[in-house]
């Protein structure tokens, strides 16, 4: 693998298609700067600011860009709001399309065949695998991401978070809760 990557890099650099310094910056960005903390800020704002939530519903791409998070692939964003009636789960059945700008790069399991196939066939079972037991009356909706359209789940705001500021709220929002594979943390249990 290393040799194949070296060969590719050599030829692309020699032909001027990629700049090695820019590659390093890009890697550093995805390793350390872009991650679920971005999405958590979007969710915390949505929980605290009704006007912002309306903007997210109308045009999530633009509302997320307001916070400085924009996709690199020209993809559109859409939010999926969890309610007591409906729980949303996001998957990419074909490959691994994922909202990089707000969640960073996907976790290993998101890219695995068992998740990609079972999220569609048995989403309730998948949630159970993640330790999430939904009330029987809650409907499950599964969203299949594409190269053009990615989803951000807005988890339900946890009980006991009334009056918390956006920084404190953001700390309750986990990566898995924004994929729909988890719930937001309850205050007092935040990492």
């Amino acid at each position, binding site marked *: *693998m*290393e*040799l*194949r*990557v*070296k*060969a*590719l*890099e*050599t*030829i*692309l650099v*020699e*032909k001027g*298609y*990629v*700049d090695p310094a*820019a*590659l390093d910056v*890009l*890697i550093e960005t*995805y*390793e*350390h700067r872009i*991650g*679920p*903390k971005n999405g958590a800020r979007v969710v915390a704002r949505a929980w605290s600011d009704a006007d912002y939530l309306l903007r997210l519903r109308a045009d999530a791409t633009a509302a997320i860009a307001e916070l400085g998070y924009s996709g*690199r*692939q*020209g*993809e559109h964003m859409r939010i999926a709001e969890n309610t007591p009636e409906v729980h949303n789960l996001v998957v990419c059945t*074909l*490959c*691994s*399309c994922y909202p990089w700008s707000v969640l*960073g*790069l996907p*976790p*290993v*399991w*998101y*890219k*695995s*065949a*068992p*998740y990609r*196939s*079972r999220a569609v066939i048995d989403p309730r079972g*998948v949630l*159970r*695998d*993640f330790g999430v037991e939904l009330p029987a009356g809650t409907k499950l909706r599964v969203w299949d991401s*594409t*190269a*053009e359209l990615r989803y951000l789940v807005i988890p339900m705001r946890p009980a006991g978070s009334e009056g918390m500021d956006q920084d404190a709220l953001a700390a309750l929002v986990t*990566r898995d809760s924004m994929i729909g594979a988890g719930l937001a943390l309850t205050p007092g249990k935040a990492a």
Partner: protein
Amino acid sequence: MSSCALPSYIAELRLQGLDGDQAVFTAPWEAQAFAMAVMLHERGLFTWAEWAEALSGEIRRAQRLGDPDNGRTYYRHWLNALEKLIVAKGLASTGMLSILRDQWDVAARETPHGQPVTLRPAGQR
């Protein structure tokens, strides 16, 4: 891994620290392959829809060939897709890539341990 093994798989990943927000790449080559694809796209050499099609095609092909497709082989599929798309777009030929792989292999073996491995510039190889 069978299709019913997701719970134990998630537990295993967590135990190995592979489910954290920071567990993005497991080897430097994965990061390099990732970044090259993103950069070529940003330079307009292919659309992201073309990329997604190439990647999902490679994933399906690997599954047919018996790959576990458990997410940990993901960047192998990514690299296969990148090589194919680069050749399809005429940015490099398979022959040239193969020659360069051999040259890197030789350079790595001829370089004393602890020294950085480098290739001579294109004109001097």
